[in-house]
């Protein structure tokens, strides 16, 4: 217990001092996971809409795959993205391996199914007749889709929160494709793993507190938007 209290005290001191390295790690975490979440929303919302609104052979299988993807193990993603980006791999010429770009790609693959799956669920809970009603009031197809997204905005903000929460807290993929290089690809989770393995619990606790704080602030902001609109 003493170890924990000691760790927390030192962590607070570290944060209060404004340690440049720790803050650099936090900023990179936000950048990588923020970018991955935004990209996942850009890809996932249209795909989720398309899956919800169209009927084609194999659709149910595809939805099952998406639902499976919502729980994709980050190490599996890390493995495949590593192979893909390996110097001798199919996309090796991009020279993305051990860069933040590789981490964004891996996190995008983790977050996209979450966004697709939750968008699909959010749109499917709107009755079919609502779509017909919008068309019956003279909406063009793009206008109808916009109204649908507006109607589903609360669960879709939840999709954004779930996607962001999923990627900012994952460690396996970031470690494998980013390499935890100090000053370049070290993020809060990979740094926490490293410091813990070294026995530097105070730094590890400081990093963890920062991670929790970021997750809280991002979710609080999204919840505020969600609840303000719902009021």
């Amino acid at each position, binding site marked *: 217990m003493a170890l924990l209290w000691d760790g927390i005290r030192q962590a607070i001191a570290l944060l209060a001092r404004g340690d440049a390295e720790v803050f650099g790690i936090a900023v990179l975490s936000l950048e990588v996971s923020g970018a991955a979440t935004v990209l996942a929303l850009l890809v996932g919302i249209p795909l989720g809409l398309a899956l919800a609104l169209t009927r084609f052979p194999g659709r149910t299988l595809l939805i099952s795959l998406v639902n499976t993807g919502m729980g994709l193990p980050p190490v599996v993603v890390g493995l495949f993205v590593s192979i893909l980006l390996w110097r001798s791999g199919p996309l090796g010429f991009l020279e993305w391996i051990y860069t933040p770009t590789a981490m964004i790609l891996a996190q995008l693959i983790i977050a996209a199914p979450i966004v697709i799956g939750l968008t699909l669920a959010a749109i499917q809970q709107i009755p079919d007749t*609502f779509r*017909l009603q919008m068309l019956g009031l003279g909406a063009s197809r793009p*206008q109808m889709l916009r*109204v649908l997204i507006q*109607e589903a905005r609360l669960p879709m903000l939840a999709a954004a929160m779930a996607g962001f929460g999923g990627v900012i807290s994952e460690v396996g993929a970031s470690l494998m494709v980013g390499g935890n290089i100090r000053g370049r690809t070290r993020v809060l989770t990979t740094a926490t793993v490293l410091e813990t393995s070294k026995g530097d619990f105070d730094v590890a606790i400081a990093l963890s507190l920062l991670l929790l704080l970021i997750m809280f602030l991002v979710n609080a902001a999204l919840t505020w938007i969600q609840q303000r609109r719902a009021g």
Partner: protein
Amino acid sequence: MSVVTLTALTVRYRGALALDIPELAIDEGGIFAIIGPNGSGKSTLLRIIGLLQRPTTGEVRFRDALVSGPRQLEVRRRMATVFQEPLLADTTVFENVALGLRFRRIPAAERRRRAERWLERFGIRDLAGRRARTLSGGEAQRCALARALVLEPEMLLLDEPFSALDPPSRDTLVADLGAILRRERVSTVLVTHDRIEARALADRVAVMMRGRIVQQDTPERLFRTPISDEVARFVGIETIVDGRVESSSAGVVRLEAGGQKIQVAAEAMVGERVRLCLRPEDVTLTPGAIVAAPSSARNRLTGTVAEVVRAGGQARVVVDCGFPLVALITYQSVDELGLTEGARVTATFKATAPHLIRLNTIA
């Protein structure tokens, strides 16, 4: 002039014919009701008219011009549809009413003016700032109707707009909407399973059964003279009995049905088999077996009360007089006349009350 014309229209679901409309024209300015039991295809027909569903075969013309791919949106925007559920968007009442105007990119000032006018007409102006999801069922449907009429559609399509409402709000809304539609002369197609709504609102009624329009006429004629016993039952005729014409002269047919002699003001040939249809509200009941007392009511049938069912403010009394004859009378009459099961009664109705369906087979 017709606003919408359908030709050679069919809809098939997995090969089964769900809708078969060789020809249908909906005229300008009136209220055209499509009635029929659930699953008869009337909502499908309405969706096709509103360009919300594509038929398997056939064409839809709007003001004589064929509606094809690129014109669909433009034509769809000259109509407006209201469904059974209000299907309001999750925003304010005002924004809901302005929604279709936004789709048409009407400027904000005009949007406001028009939305306010229609909120006023449906008596929900006070609710303009409320979240639509907090409205009662009646208020929500008023909002849905205002949202459609604010578009000043050339054709208003209503799909069972009252059937999710409780009776008091339904009755006032039917009356309010009827007044608005008549004043504005909005061409309207009303789909309903409720013949009373159709009778209250429509200028013309079509009856649909199993995907086909089986009869189309003014409400007065349609409710009086159904062409088949199926339509007869649907339009509220409860006494349906087969008989044979014994004599016919001066526009009065005398027929025998279930052992009773009945006179009907109609044309038919002697020996012809006919089906007699009689509305329950056209029958009066008198206790006991009345012999004479001159009256203009030509038919006087004696029988016993088989059943008294009290429902919806009035009682249905089934009299067994060789065939089951149904009369609709007030609770008060039931009690005052002592109409209990087994009581002897005389059922009286005029020769002009029944309608005869000629069965076209002369025995």
